[in-house]
C-alpha cells in the first residue's frame, strides 16, 4: 500500500470545482455568441436571449470564486530559477524525459503560468464584460469604449480557454494527478517524481 500525501483540502477542492463549472458554462455560452458555428450552444442555456442574460452572471461567479482561490494559492505561484530551467527543458517535459528536469516545489512552471494567465485575464474579462453588459451597464458607456471592450473580452477569453485546454489535458496526461482534485491526495511516489521539493517539505524526507 502506497503512502498518500494530502495536496488539497475539501474546501480548496470545492472552490476549484465551482470555478471549473462556472468556466465551462461561461466558455460555452461565450463561444455561442462569438462565432455562428457555436451558436447551437445557446440551446444548452434555453435559447439566445437566455444565453445573453445568463453569461455575465456566470462570469461574475467565476471571477469571485477564482479570486478566492488565487488568494489561497498566490504564494505557491511565484516564479523561481528552477521554473526558468524547467521552461528551457520543455522539450524533455513533453517527451516524458523527466530525469533531466530540476526539482520543483508544489507547482511547475506550466501550472504557475496558467495561474498568472487567469490572474490577468479574469479581471480583464470582468471589466470589459461590465462595459458591454446589456441592459444594465452598456448604455452608460461611450460607443468607442464598447468597441474596445468587445475586442479585449474576446482576446482575454481566447487566451484563457487555450490555457484551460492545456490545463485539462495536462491533468489527463500526467497520471495520478486528477485524484489531487477529486480525493485531495496524491501518492508519495507521484509527489516525489513531479514535485520533489514539495515532497520533502511535506514528509520531512
Amino acid at each position: 500500500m502506497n503512502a498518500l500525501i494530502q495536496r488539497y483540502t475539501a474546501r480548496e477542492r470545492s472552490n476549484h470545482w465551482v470555478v471549473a463549472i462556472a468556466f465551462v458554462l461561461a466558455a460555452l455560452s461565450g463561444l455561442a455568441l462569438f462565432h455562428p458555428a457555436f451558436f447551437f450552444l445557446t440551446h444548452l442555456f434555453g435559447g439566445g436571449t437566455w444565453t445573453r442574460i445568463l453569461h455575465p452572471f456566470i462570469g461574475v461567479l467565476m471571477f469571485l470564486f477564482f479570486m478566492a482561490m488565487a488568494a489561497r494559492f498566490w504564494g505557491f505561484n511565484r516564479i523561481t530559477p528552477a521554473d526558468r530551467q524547467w521552461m528551457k527543458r520543455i522539450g524533455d517535459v513533453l517527451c516524458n524525459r523527466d530525469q533531466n528536469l530540476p526539482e520543483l516545489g508544489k507547482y511547475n512552471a506550466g501550472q504557475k503560468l496558467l495561474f498568472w494567465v487567469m490572474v490577468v485575464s479574469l479581471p480583464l474579462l470582468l471589466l470589459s464584460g461590465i462595459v458591454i453588459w446589456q441592459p444594465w451597464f452598456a448604455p452608460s458607456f461611450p460607443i468607442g469604449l464598447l468597441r474596445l471592450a468587445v475586442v479585449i473580452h474576446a482576446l482575454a477569453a481566447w487566451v484563457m480557454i487555450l490555457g484551460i485546454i492545456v490545463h485539462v489535458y495536462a491533468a489527463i496526461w500526467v497520471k495520478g494527478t486528477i485524484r489531487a482534485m477529486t480525493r485531495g491526495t496524491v501518492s508519495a511516489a507521484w509527489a516525489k517524481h513531479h514535485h520533489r521539493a514539495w515532497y520533502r517539505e511535506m514528509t520531512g524526507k
Partner: protein
Amino acid sequence: MALQSLDITARSATTTPSPSARGEAVKVAKLIDISKCIGCKACQVACMQWNDLRDEVGTNVGVYDNPRDLTDQSWTVMRFSEVEVEAGRLEWLIRKDGCMHCADPGCLKACPAPGAIVQYANGIVDFHEENCIGCGYCITGCPFNIPRISKKDNKAYKCTLCSDRVAVGLEPACVKICPTGAIVFGSKDDMIHHAEGRIEDLKERGYSKAALYDPPGVGGTHVMYVLQHGDQPELYANLPKDPHISPLVGLWKGITKPLMSFGVGLAVFAGFFHYVTAGPKKVEDEEEAKS
C-alpha cells in the same frame, strides 16, 4: 418584418448562402434634400403612425429637437443645427436622422444571432426582432449610432425604411407625408440622378460645395442626403465625414473570429495527438514501490 424572404442578400451570423432564388432586385434609396426641409416633423409623426409607435412625452429642454434622441419608439428624429458657415450669416440646418441602410452594414456584421438582421436584395437593412437576443452588438457595429434597445423587451429597434410598405410597392411613410418634397424615394440610380439636378440648382444659388452624401466607406447608403455644405457634413449635427465600420469591430468580427475558433480546435487536437504519440506521463512502478 419578414416579408421579402426570398430577396435576402445577407443574414447576420450565417455562414451559408441566404435565400436568393429571385436574384438581383432594383436597389432602392431614400433621398433627403436638407435644403428643402422646413423642420415640420411630419416625417416623425408619419413614422410613429405607420409603425404604431408612441414615444414618451418628454420635456422641453430649450431646443427644437423633440424627442431629444432616437429611441426604440422614435426611429427618426429631426436634428436642428444653428451654424454660421460665413460670419454673420446664420443658417438653420435640419437633418432627419435615422438608419442610413448601409450597403456594408456594421450592425449586421456585429450581430451574433442568426437572422436577427437581414439585408434585402433591394438594399434595405432590417431587424427581425423575434431573433434578436438583446446583446447590443449592433450598437457597437453601427458607424452612425442608430440602433436603440428597448427598455421594455431588450430588443434592438431602428428605421426599417418601411420595408413592409416597399415590399408592396408603396413609398416609406415619411416620404409620403413630406409636405415640401424634401424626402423622395425610388431606385438608387434615379435618386442619384435627381440629386444631381438639385446640386446643380444649389450651386447656382451660391452653395458652391453642395454635394450628395452617399459615403463610400460603408459601401454607399440607401438613405442619402443632399447637403448644401457637402464638404462639411459635420455641420449637420455631427454627420460623420467618412463613416466606416470601426477597425476594432472589423478585427473582432473579421479575422479573429475564424482564427481564434481554429486555434481552440487546434489546441484540443494537439493534446489528443500528443497523448497518442508521446504517451501518458507515468510514475514507474518501481518508484511507487520504493516510496
